[in-house]
């Protein structure tokens, strides 16, 4: 039988824009130290580290961990595009689950460049080749950033299907900014109105600049442990992982739907498995951190996760069911849109926010009586990791 995984320490750096942050090893070490302190463990207690990042030469993970301690432990470098952070988290959780270790570190960081994401290697098969093929068939290619074309195209398909207004997409950004205003770790703390969001430069219809997550630098970390280890530390009621699922692309990703190409079915399938695995349904969830790299994806994800029925996202948004006072609080941290999206760190920053929420230490962002939290982290290429946390 697999062992329960507890999250006993979390930490993150303030997210910053490219150029304004420390180097990756400094950010990562800082986040790890905060998490270690939070867990009240010593670095020597940590038996292995799972370190995620997307951009950087090999073994950046060790370099980051070495600034925290040199105990010769195994360090695994993890790379899974935008879902890198939660992939590191999942590997770390598996080590506990399988009884391989009692206490481990999951760490993620990213030092990003200005401008949109691009491909670093042009002399080999692009891993997103099959995804791009779908897009080329469906809508051609233009000079907009690729990710914006993909998720924006998914937004177009959704709009065509359900007649969604552009304002609805902008509403999501407005909400993200409002949430982030209460998050000192977020990159953007200033609220924006729907009008301002719509008036910003168009990136790829229906997406405007303020509906795209910014390139960000930052790091986040989590300390995971077994029940026995938590007991030894005297922690009586730790936040624990009730379930976790990763999916990758299904054949439907490569048919003719932009929505499916950007991972709608990966999320949908993962959610089904997670709800089965945990016996917790969407309706039982109190707070959600989900992958809002673009407003369009947050909207699709509401439906894929079953937070609202298919085709009903617009009503869900205008009814305020995605924020305080509604059915779910989605992205209390401000999400990728406002908190920022350092690829390798995002999955662990989501974890950090949710652990704070479940501990009741969310400050002004605290979701009242949060007991069950859901995390959704998605990477094109593709991988979708869902994690359910409980008090």
């Amino acid at each position, binding site marked *: 039988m697999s062992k329960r995984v507890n999250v006993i320490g979390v930490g993150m750096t303030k997210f910053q824009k490219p150029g304004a942050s420390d180097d990756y090893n400094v950010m990562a070490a800082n986040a790890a130290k905060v998490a270690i302190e939070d867990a009240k463990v010593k670095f020597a207690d940590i038996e292995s580290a799972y370190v995620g990042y997307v951009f950087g030469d090999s073994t950046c993970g060790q370099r980051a961990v070495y600034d925290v301690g040199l105990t010769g432990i195994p360090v695994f470098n993890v790379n899974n595009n935008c879902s890198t952070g939660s992939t590191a988290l999942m590997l770390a959780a598996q080590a506990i689950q399988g009884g391989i270790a009692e206490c481990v570190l999951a760490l993620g960081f990213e030092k990003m460049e200005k*401008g949109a994401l*691009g491909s670093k290697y042009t002399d080999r098969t692009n891993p997103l080749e099959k995804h791009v093929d779908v897009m080329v068939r*469906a*809508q*051609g290619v*233009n000079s907009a950033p690729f990710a914006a074309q993909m998720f924006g*195209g998914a937004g*177009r*398909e959704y*709009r*065509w299907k*359900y*007649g*969604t*207004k*552009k304002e609805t997409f902008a509403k999501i950004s407005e909400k993200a900014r409002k949430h982030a205003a209460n998050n000192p770790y977020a990159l953007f703390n200033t609220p924006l109105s729907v009008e301002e969001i719509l008036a910003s430069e168009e990136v*790829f*219809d*229906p997406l405007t600049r303020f509906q795209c997550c910014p390139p960000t630098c930052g790091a986040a970390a989590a300390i995971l442990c077994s029940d026995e280890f938590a007991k030894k530390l005297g922690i009586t009621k730790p936040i624990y992982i009730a379930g976790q699922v990763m999916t990758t692309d299904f054949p439907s990703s490569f048919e003719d739907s*932009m929505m499916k190409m950007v991972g709608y079915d990966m999320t949908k399938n993962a959610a089904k498995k997670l709800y089965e695995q945990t016996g917790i349904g969407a309706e039982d969830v109190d707070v959600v951190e989900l992958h809002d790299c673009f407003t369009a994806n947050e909207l699709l994800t509401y439906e894929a996760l079953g937070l609202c029925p298919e085709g009903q996202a617009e009503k869900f948004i205008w009814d305020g069911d995605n924020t305080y006072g509604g059915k779910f609080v989605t992205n209390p941290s401000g999400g990728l849109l406002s908190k920022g999206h350092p690829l390798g760190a995002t999955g662990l920053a989501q974890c950090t926010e949710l652990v704070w929420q479940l501990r009741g230490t969310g400050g002004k962002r605290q979701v009242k009586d949060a007991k069950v939290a859901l995390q959704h982290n998605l990477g094109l290429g593709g991988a979708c990791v869902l994690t359910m946390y409980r008090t």
Partner: protein
Amino acid sequence: MSQLRFDGRVALVTGAGNGLGRSHALLLASRGCKVVVNDLGGGHTGGGKSSAAADAVVAEIKAAGGEAVANYDSVEDGDKIVKTALDAFGHLDIVINNAGILRDTSFQKMTQEDWDLIYRVHVLGAYRVTKAAWDHMRERGFGRIILTASAAGIYGNFGQTNYAMAKLGLVGFGSTLAIEGGKKNVHTNVIAPIAGSRMTETVLPKDLIDALKPEYVSPLVAYLCHETCTENGGLFEVGGGFYGKLRWERTSGKVFKLGRAISPENVQSAWGDITDFKKTTHPKDITSSMEPILGNLGTKALGGNEFIDLDQAMGYEFPSATTTYDERDTALYALGVGAAQNPLDEKELQYVYEMNGAGFNVLPTFGVVPALGFIFDLYKQGKQAPGMNYGFERVLHGEQYTELRRPLPPHAKLTHKAKIKDIFDKGKNALVVTEIRSFDETGEELVYNELTTFVRGAGGWGGDRGPQGEVNTPPDRAPDQTITEKISENQALLYRLSGDINPLHADPAFAKNFGFEKPILHGLCTFGYAARHVIRAFSNNDARLFKSIKARFSESVFPGETIVTEMWKESATRIVFRCKVKERDKVVLASAAIELYTEIPKPKAKPATTPTPTTAVAAPAGLSLPTEGGMNSNDLFWGIRHHVETNPDLVGQIGTVFQFKLTGPESVWTLDLKNGKGSVTEGEAAKPDCTLELSQADFLGMATGKLNPQKLYFGGQLKIGGNLMASQKLTFLQKIDAAKTRDAMKAAGYTPGAGGAVPAGASATAGPAASSGSPSGDVFVAIRDYIEKNPDLVGQVATVYQWKLTGPDSAWIMDLKNGKGSVEPGNHDKPDCTLELADSDFMAMTSGAADPQKLFFEKKLKISGNLMASQKLTFLKKMDPEQAKAAIAKAKASGGAPAAGGGAAAAPKKDAVAPRFFGALAERLKKTPALKDEVKAIIQFVVTAPDAAWTCDFVAGAITEGKVDNATAVVRIADSDLTEIAQDGNLASLFQHGKFKVDGDVRVAHKLGFVKGLV
């Protein structure tokens, strides 16, 4: 909820003097049940006897107002206990087999008595009591039986081998009683209770026993015994407040196909599957237990042994891969199989010299090289087919069959798909046939190979022996043709460069180890020799007629020996042959034949629709061009050029570079309606936006309006690459007036139908356009001025730069390599370095406002060719702005003659589509008022380039120019795209492509289908 009552029921509880039995008896009695309280009154290990325990319980029941009688018999006398019940109460409904004792001791110390005693009380006792009650219950059509098992029996427990045996025995006993009694409403269930009793005091700590009261177990027993409970054959764990049912879980396991031996090693290697509880079933009964076994009965293994598992390997499809080859590879191969030993032999030059006057042809047997290379690569990557568990050292290439679907092109990108086609048991050895199909880039199969390998020592599983008997046996007469050729001493060294680098063919020491005096020749090298010989002898030396070859490799050949190919013509298309080594008179290629085509096959993907196929392939362009109305395609392109020249607006409107690839005969034309003034030239375009492939005849039909391009496209006669949408802009072709074109031709001295040459003066790229609105032209003027003043630059930079600016588009050549250097608009045919960027970025870069490196990394600046040369452009920063201004002013004053490109995009668009589009829409609405009801919405169109606003009010039924603020949806669209939505009509796709945008409710746009055909 009403109370579960047992009024009128009679229960018999064994061992009811204490613990669980007492608790069961008390609970049932409290609910109206008459109870026989049986207890021998012995100790919990089976010694002694007394009536006190049973009497006490009976007294307790009676005191509470219930009915009960005591019985002091041993359960081994079950009939006496049952008799007590029948005597006292007349019938019996419930039997609770609860009596039990413990004789705990490790197996090591266990005595026969310990074993027998436990068996007698638990198993034999339960049997005797139940047996005595059984017929009675069946006759009455009601009975509830409880058997008491234990977790120790289910899971095992130290010191309780005897007890565990007995307890699990009761589970099996109960499962079967349930089946036999079910129909008579006699239900049997088994409980595995945990409770603090005299028996468990020995194994459990005191405080735990207190928590495990028997009273926590009895409610389950009572419910199971109630008449409303339908549970039968269940097993329950119960105690301390916990109630749960157990069932069997079984892994999905591993199913081996039947018909062949299953070894312990098979089981070992399947252990993961056998024990994997991720996939499980829960068999309920014998039938469901048998399911996988029954399911496997029909299967039959194909057979195999430790080397080959046919069930896994047969039909296995290898992962496909793509390889390329070019003229160099095919020539090297031809040299490798001895072609052109005499370099003056014209018949052989065709295989090795790509510029050969009489044509360059690939030696057909080259078709085996890419396919085998693909298979070798799979081996190297360890991608053996599953079930093929032998090393490469056992493999011998036995036979080869290679078939070409059409002549191999001189270079190609091939995708190979291979699968195991057959596996034969040749007794001692095995024969494995792998088929490899190689497809060209259009997806058409080009080559089919069958690779037959001998696997030494891998046969003998008693399987299919495969086709028997000799094939392609030479007839009993002297050969019709014989070709003798000496093989060079170093031939194997040459052949191995085509991919088979086995050291056996190169390394003398290695060859000795294999028992050969020196490295041997590749069998496939001899194969190539033979093909060459047959083509020479029977195919009029036309390699393109070659269809297929099959041969068996019967003996090794040494380089330096003389090969004799003996050939027999069996039919016009079939040549049987064999190859011998002259020196040793040994047959080295046997059972061999080559088949020929009667005419050269053509690619299927591009069917030549011209009725004169014989003119295809090698006919020089222009000799026999199909004509339509007295015009051939050359004439037509002349006409198109004339049309483009006389309609300069076309460039702005269409903005596309078209590439026409015509077949039958082949010719290539570029129609540039994007750059400069536009141009029509023969030859390939550097970067076409849209490529159209079709036959000359179809092109003529299409351009003259006789054939519908859409039909051609869907019929597969027209292939469109690149921007599919752009091809729709070609409708202008139909506007070309044939009569006027002829007049123009006459005036220009061009003879229609003459074909070929393009008249002088009309050729080449259009010259630079007249001055435009873009200031980038001025900058180039300034650069030219700077270069003129700094003649040393040419030596220092020594580079020809090609600038391609977009938005507005223009192209400039900056030559700092030749002569004194020059700057002029247009496209250079061999630039060293090409820079592509937006006009505005170019301006920002040359004014120093933007850093070229940054532009490059942001992908706003694309550099092709020599990247380093772009770094030499820093001289641009040294230009004096004042001087530049002066130069520009001077150029403008002198009439603007040299100035800028970009004329195309900046050319004024005289014919905005919008007025026509909305005019036509108003007409349509007038004619079809039903449109109103169909749409029922106000749609605001905001048109750009040129800007316009139109309101389509489908509520009031009016199309008016201008804006309103109560529109249901706002459609934003470029003027030129109005044509596209009117022509294409696939609104979902156009929306997805961003051809138009919608504010407000997008679904209104779904109803815009009626715009199709408006303009």
